[in-house]
């Protein structure tokens, strides 16, 4: 397994601004993912963060709104751009070391847009 440190744990942001969320893993992982979780709801996959190349986005999510970086095998960032109140949610990063036999998660970032 591995430990993912995600920060910030929470933030309150003004609409129209951007927030970058960081995830640092304590060991190399093959794959990293970013999820959004509305309060009381399940997790929705935003994108797969690919090391050294553009992320792979799920339907309904676009790079201009959620740019993702993954410069190496232990670090990734998700930016929520031009935020609106509808972006208020919990954002989680996840990693796995190969075949998806176990995914481990960061602590999540609770974002509130006012």
């Amino acid at each position, binding site marked *: 397994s591995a430990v993912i440190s995600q920060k910030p744990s929470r933030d309150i942001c003004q609409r129209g601004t951007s927030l970058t969320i960081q995830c640092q893993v304590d060991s190399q992982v093959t*794959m990293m*993912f970013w999820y959004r979780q509305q309060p*009381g*709801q*399940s*997790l929705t*996959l935003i994108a*797969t963060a690919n090391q050294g190349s553009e992320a792979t986005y799920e339907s309904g999510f676009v790079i201009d709104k959620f740019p993702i970086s993954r410069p190496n095998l232990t670090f990734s960032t998700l930016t929520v751009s031009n935020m609106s109140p509808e972006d208020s949610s*919990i954002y*989680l990063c*996840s990693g796995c070391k190969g*075949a*998806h*036999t*176990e*995914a*481990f*998660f960061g*602590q*999540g970032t*609770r974002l509130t847009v006012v």
Partner: protein
Amino acid sequence: AQTVTQSQPEMSVQEAETVTLSCTYDTSESDYYLFWYKQPPSRQMILVIRQEAYKQQNATENRFSVNFQKAAKSFSLKISDSQLGDAAMYFCAYWSYNAGNMLTFGGGTRLMVKP
């Protein structure tokens, strides 16, 4: 596409009693993995138990066990001797090699434990 359904939005159990959380899934794959994750108020997703579809034996982890019915595409979680710390959201999840290397989550079940 694979789907995962948890039909119980909320469940309640008395401390020390046993509770079963339901999960069904839909897939055309024969080789896949199923998981139960726990998410307490701290938001940290914690893996509770994992089941490989090719294994007929049900997985167990201490007080947690599953009833895996492959033909029925059912994967329920049984929590024995429930403790106050078991109170959390529980998510059933599916993964297969051909599913884009991503987890598909069910809608979740909120478990409340009464002292």
